[in-house]
């Protein structure tokens, strides 16, 4: 799946030998001569063999990785379970203590607090506003050693990092398949998914292991939704922190607004036009890393697709980094997604400068942790707002189908069709702008190499005919328009084949000839008209 960690070499491996001029070659006069034909066949065969070998190697590697991932996921679950149990124990002790106190005060009806214990601990973590627990407690353990003084030490000892805040409904029955939770794709009801990694405290551990090995056909555990949920908890934690940390409060809002403003200022006015903005974004993130405001430290592993081990020579190897840093990356990612929706939805060409800045920010080694970027945070957001890029499908005429497709809801109502389609187009262009960046001339490592683009496209065009949706067509169209040239540069003839599949075969087998389906075919017509490229 899309998940393997960014490997520097790959982008080169996957690209075909003739990177440039492919288009010119194709339009060349002697393209149909026999020698050329033979030569091409020869090259194609070699290429085929190379790709096949590579594919075999990759699949073996991938299987190993999957196995490792599964084990790690299990380990994580067990750890979570233990932490949760410890937490319950602590809470229960606290509750007992409280109860005893209450009994001493005159008219306490003892029946009331008694049946609560199981239900009460989780909400204690939430930002309910006031009733029982002191608000700061969720952050307690993750405090940095030095800065502990900044936050009130009122919290009771609880050995959980703040992720634990989230996995809240432990009473829920185990889900049949972890993937079944895919319907909260619209981000509005992510709670259901949380069950996967937490495991139920009461249920026997065996129950947890039963659900662990996912059906192999589906993407493994949906790590992106977990990251997304962790980000929500992070934002909540920041809200709490600024209540007690004046220095942070004074600066955080300004940093956030500077980043949002900078993303909004990006233009396609040529090279160097966006330098000031890039620098501002970078400087804010760097400042957050220095943590002069003494915000809570958190485990960066909560925001990465795969667990990471320390890497020699990496800018950051420590087990914890300032929460503000992740908050700002989260704001940056959110801003980028919003900009794609607002701007690229209306004019797809505006996606490109944003994609460039994404590439620059996430390829900056000073902002890396253990040798890799935090682009998974951006991808987690993509996963929520545009699930079709990750192979999710749904029927637009049903509630669940829309949720799976990432159809947004506002105030409990689905947003209008036009608004949804605009969003999807913007996100499709945005994804291409992020995933089709050429690092050939750069010393940096591509944080999100083009293979992800290929995978996303493959997942859409391989949809069974009966399940093809308008949403997919629009995302697919937006991914391709304006990026034909780049796609061909990376993949050569394979890109042409992919485009033929996407623009001719895919719409041809769609069950309903809607405007969205037809507009894919029009892209092919336009290509022929404007560039002379004939796909089929």
């Amino acid at each position, binding site marked *: 799946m899309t998940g393997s960690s960014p490997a520097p070499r790959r982008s080169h491996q996957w690209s075909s030998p003739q990177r440039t001029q492919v288009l010119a070659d194709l339009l060349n006069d002697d393209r149909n001569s026999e020698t050329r034909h033979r030569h091409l066949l020869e090259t194609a065969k070699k290429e085929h063999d190379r790709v096949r070998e590579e594919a075999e190697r990759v699949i073996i590697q991938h299987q190993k990785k999957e196995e490792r991932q599964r084990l790690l996921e299990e380990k994580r679950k067990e750890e979570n379970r233990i932490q949760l149990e410890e937490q319950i124990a602590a809470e229960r002790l606290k509750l007992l203590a409280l109860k005893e106190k209450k009994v001493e005060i005159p008219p306490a009806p003892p029946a009331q607090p008694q049946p609560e214990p199981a239900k009460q601990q*989780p909400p204690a973590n*939430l930002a309910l*506003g006031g009733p029982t627990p002191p608000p700061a407690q969720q952050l307690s353990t993750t405090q940095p050693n030095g800065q502990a003084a900044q936050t009130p030490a009122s919290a009771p000892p609880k050995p959980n990092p703040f992720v634990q805040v989230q996995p809240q409904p432990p009473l*829920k029955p185990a*889900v*049949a398949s972890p993937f*079944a939770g895919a*319907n909260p794709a619209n981000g*509005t009801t*992510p*709670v*259901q998914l949380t069950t996967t990694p937490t495991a139920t405290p009461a249920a026997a551990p065996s129950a947890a292991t039963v659900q662990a090995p996912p059906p192999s056909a589906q993407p493994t555990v949906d790590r992106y939704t977990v990251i997304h*949920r962790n980000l*929500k*908890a992070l*934002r909540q934690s920041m809200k709490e922190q600024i209540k007690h940390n004046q220095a942070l409060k004074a600066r955080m*809002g300004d940093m*956030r*607004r*500077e980043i*949002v*403003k900078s*993303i*909004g*200022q990006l*233009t*396609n*006015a*040529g090279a160097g*036009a966006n330098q*000031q*903005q890039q620098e501002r974004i970078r400087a804010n993130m760097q400042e957050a890393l220095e943590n002069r405001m003494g915000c809570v430290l958190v485990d960066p592993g909560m925001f990465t697709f795969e667990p990471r081990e320390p890497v020699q020579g990496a800018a950051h190897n420590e087990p914890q980094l300032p929460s503000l840093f992740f908050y700002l990356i989260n704001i940056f990612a959110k801003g980028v997604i919003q900009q794609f929706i*607002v*701007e690229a939805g*209306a*004019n797809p*060409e*505006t996606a490109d400068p944003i994609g460039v800045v994404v590439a620059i920010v996430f390829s900056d080694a000073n902002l890396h942790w253990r040798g890799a970027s935090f682009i998974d945070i951006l991808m987690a957001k993509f996963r929520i707002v545009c699930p079709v890029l990750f192979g999710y499908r749904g*029927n637009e005429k*049903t*509630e*669940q189908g*829309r949720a799976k497709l990432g159809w947004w809801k*506002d*105030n*409990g*109502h*689905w*947003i209008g*069709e*036009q*608004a949804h*389609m*605009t969003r999807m187009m913007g996100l499709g262009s945005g994804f291409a702008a992020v995933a089709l960046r050429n690092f050939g001339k750069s010393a940096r490592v591509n944080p999100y190499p083009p293979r992800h683009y290929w995978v996303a496209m493959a997942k859409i065009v391989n949809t069974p005919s009966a399940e093809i949706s308008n949403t997919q067509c629009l995302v697919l169209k937006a991914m391709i328009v304006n990026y034909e040239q780049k796609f061909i540069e990376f993949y050569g003839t394979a890109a042409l084949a992919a485009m033929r599949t996407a623009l001719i075969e895919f719409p041809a087998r769609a069950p309903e000839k809607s*405007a969205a389906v*037809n*507009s894919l075919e*029009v*892209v092919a*017509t336009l290509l022929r008209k404007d560039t002379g490229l004939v796909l089929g």
Partner: protein
Amino acid sequence: MADLASRISKPEDAPAAADAGASTSAAETKIETAEPSNLVDNEYEVEIKLSDLQNDKENPLFSVSSFEELGLSKAINDGLLAMNFKKPSKIQERALPLMLSDPPRNMIAQSQSGTGKTAAFVLTVLSRVDLTKPTQPQALILAPSRELARQIQMVVQTVGQFCENLIVEAAIPGSISRETGVKSSVVVGTPGTVMDLVRRRQFDVSHLKVLVIDEADNMLDQQGMGEQCVRVKNMLPKTIQILLFSATFPDKVLQYAEKYAPNANQMKLKQQELTVKGISQMYMDCPAEKDKYDILCKLYGLMTIGSSVIFVRTRDSATEIQRRMEADGHKVSALHGAYEGASRDALLDDFRSGRSKVLITTNVLARGIDVSTVSMVINYDIPMKGPGDREPDAETYLHRIGRTGRFGRVGVSISFVYDRKSFDALSHIAEFYGIDLIQLSPDDWDFTEQKVQEVIKSSRAKADYAPNATSGSG
């Protein structure tokens, strides 16, 4: 208290509250019971609620039919698809059959800004033109400004990009060759230039079949242009089909319009239906006029903004704002009467293409200009009219804010007030259209940011409840 209230209302809001991850447990249990358990998931799916579809039906962008059902040619349809037009909007669905029927009948059509009026008349024009006579003028479209004429020309060309032999020319100063004269089937121009061309016999009007007047209330009302429009009409064949379009038709202009286009089919809106619900309308309470610059720059961090348009009263303030905003990292185009022809075109092209993202302008561009990425409009000065700028100009306000929220997108408008006069003027406009303006204040930006976000969110939901664009015709 407020805290309590918000908690009580939580359960209903919960499905929408994307950010309320850690909401109350009550809310979550509600979700769990309301939706089918995951254990039986995927087997059967619930159809979209009727209410959601009905919301759509109220929307001026909603229609039941497709462009194909409207009987357009394949070439035109492909052009629409290439432009990402999927379905006709209400005005297109309702007005097109009336305009395309034979024998041709006149039409006076009103619809909110950004709901597809231009495409509606462009489709009519393209359907009426006989492409076998590519250089014979057959349709004339009049617009109040050079920029708008060029924009319409571009729309005709884009919708018609698959129509072979389609030639579209703009009859604006400096664009028609003096030697050849008009040699196209579709002409888009400003009334003055068109009149000159006809007088000089460089524009053969004898085969014109359609006359479209965009921003018709403005064109027929203004002293100079109203007269010009009448003169142009008198030069044209008597049988010509006349189509008048605008988002606003004040009563007195409407009477006049009915004389200009006799026996017309009409599609009108009530005054309260004029505002586009997808546009969040707010105002910023500035302590003093001198604070407006700094406040303006701060606005750009509060929300995600694509492009923005800032309307000012004088050229001087336009220049000063430009200077300050560029220092803050913005790419700015300032467009006003000080610039002429080609440089105006270049400035606007920069803005359209996204090379600059802030457009500072005077009323020149209040009407018609369609740049789809505009997500914020600032009334840096409240629009006024009459001698000594004494009267609030409600129509201009509406046209200005209509530069955003195009075709169902979300937009924001923020009007600056700083003294009694500006406050009263804005209140008058708000009352006139029955708008609820939300107040913002520059004291606490964290708070203002939060408020803006809430307003945008609720407008996005309201965009679905927008009124019917076409109440009554005939």
